[in-house]
């Protein structure tokens, strides 16, 4: 079939405006983080002053370190458990409690964070758990494993199942077939799921506020309390660093998924 471009002027305009709307605010933020002036709105020339300020801010650095640790650990646990959940849902056929299982996995995707945060806190209080690194990590794992499960499940669903079946006909047991055939094929989705979990955790304010304890604030909690007091140029610098970190993670992960999926199929949605 011939493929003609059916773009109208209206289509082009709405695309251009939409992308500008999405990117301009972030771009402005990044540019102003290099502003020498103390006044956030007056341009005083290029400078790294606010980055310097951040690296001398012990409380901020500690919060950033806490956030990174939580993000790496929760993303890793969430990827493991979330992948298992995806395998069970897309390859397990029917099993008892399946409806409840998928319900529990899909609900947190849209559940308002205040509810998730409050309910987990009440659990931790009832269990008399000391609040800090581990409670936040568990809370983030609970949220992000659902995203991992969806990303991996959608990849599993689009996979040709005859490949697994062929491996088994050739004498592999299911475990072997999974490790040798399925796992390499869903690897890009697993990587994408880890990235998504990592950034969601790094980003979360509400759930972390509920589940953390005194003295162990995460970066978003610190940023939030600063932002409430007004705009500070230092925050621009921190935000730019976070954006840079996430950009690096995305580039590495997309390179990794390109290397591992020679079919050239795109990774998972989202």
């Amino acid at each position, binding site marked *: 079939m011939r493929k003609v471009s059916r*773009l109208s002027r*209206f*289509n082009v305009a*709405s*695309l251009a405006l*939409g*992308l500008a*709307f999405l990117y301009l*605010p*972030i771009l*402005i*933020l990044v540019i102003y983080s290099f502003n020498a002036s103390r006044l956030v709105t007056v341009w005083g020339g290029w400078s790294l002053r606010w980055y310097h300020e951040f690296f001398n801010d012990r409380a901020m650095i500690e919060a950033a370190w806490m956030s990174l640790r939580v993000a790496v650990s929760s993303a890793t646990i969430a990827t493991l458990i979330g992948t*298992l*959940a995806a*395998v*069970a849902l*897309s*390859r*397990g*056929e029917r*099993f008892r409690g399946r409806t409840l*299982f*998928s*319900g*529990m996995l*899909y*609900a947190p995707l*849209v*559940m*308002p964070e*205040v*509810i*998730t945060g*409050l*309910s987990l806190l*009440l659990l931790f*209080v*009832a269990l008399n758990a000391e609040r800090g690194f581990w409670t936040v990590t568990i809370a983030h*794992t*609970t949220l992000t494993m659902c995203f991992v499960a*969806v990303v991996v*499940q959608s990849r599993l669903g*689009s996979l040709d199942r005859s490949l697994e*079946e062929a491996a*088994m006909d050739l004498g592999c047991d*299911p*475990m072997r077939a999974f490790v040798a055939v399925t796992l390499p094929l869903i690897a890009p989705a697993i990587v994408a799921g880890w990235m998504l979990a990592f*950034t969601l955790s*790094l*980003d979360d304010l*509400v759930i972390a506020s509920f589940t953390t304890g005194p003295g162990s604030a995460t970066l*978003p909690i610190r940023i939030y309390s600063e*932002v409430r007091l007004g*705009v500070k140029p230092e*925050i*621009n610098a921190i*935000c730019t660093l*976070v954006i840079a970190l*996430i950009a690096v993670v995305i580039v590495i992960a997309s390179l990794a998924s390109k290397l591992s999926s020679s079919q050239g199929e795109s990774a998972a*949605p989202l």
Partner: protein
Amino acid sequence: MSARRIFARPARLAAIAPYVWMVLFFLVPFGFVLKISLSQTAIAQPPYEPVFDLMAGWGALKAAFAALSIDNFKLLASDDIYVFAYVRSLIVAVTATALLLLIGYPIAYGMARLPARWQAVAMVLVIVPFWTSFLIRIYAWINILQHDGLLNQILLALHLVSQPVVWLSTDSAMYIGIVYSYLPFMILPLYATLAKMEPVLEEAASDLGAPRWQVFWLVTFPLSLPGVGAGVLLCFIPIVGEFVIPDLLAGSNSLMIGQTLWLEFFTNKDWPVASAAAIVLLVVLLVPLLLYERLQKRQLEQGR
């Protein structure tokens, strides 16, 4: 037995770990929310009573059960602050979702009409801002919208206004923030359905003489309804409980329910009322949540 069936047995076993995890950290906590929503505030640690103590024996447990009451729910229903907060949350969510649909649809439509090679690029471009921090994106808008921020500077320079406009702490700022943060969630499901649509259908309609708007209204839009449904639910549900955006961008004279819950919990330390507010919020969202789950399930489990 087919290979598929043999494969399914160990696959089912994979459910055990995530199942236990979700029951423990997602389902059970709701039990605690429910229980504490029926308790009273106390100046103690934890700040509510009765506290169930399984070691205290049957009599104490029975007394604890008897002490539960629905007073907090009565308070929520009778106090205007809470009633207004729920109504406002719903109004904000409906308005914002409508705005998102109006703004997101043309963008998704434009994406779906790009040549295939460019569609992938456009999709990445829409997703990338979603990866950058939510808080950072709101903060970026505070920069732009503040009194001597970029928007007012531009408006003044163009002589569109004679004095700086107050943007921050207004509903318009909040709507800008919500639309900005949730736009990818609206665009992606819309794009997914629009991209799958057969262009032949639109061509046939226009060959048969339908004007452009009629082609859109009678063919394109009805066919994209599944995407509209997914996008609307994906935005509406979390916006109802939104906390950060109204807290940082809207004024403080009328609160959304997420903010009231936060206030009761962190400022007033009234855990029981906060829990009751969460339960009511959950009940309000139950129908859209169930709808969303069915949609998600259909999309993921019956092939795409």
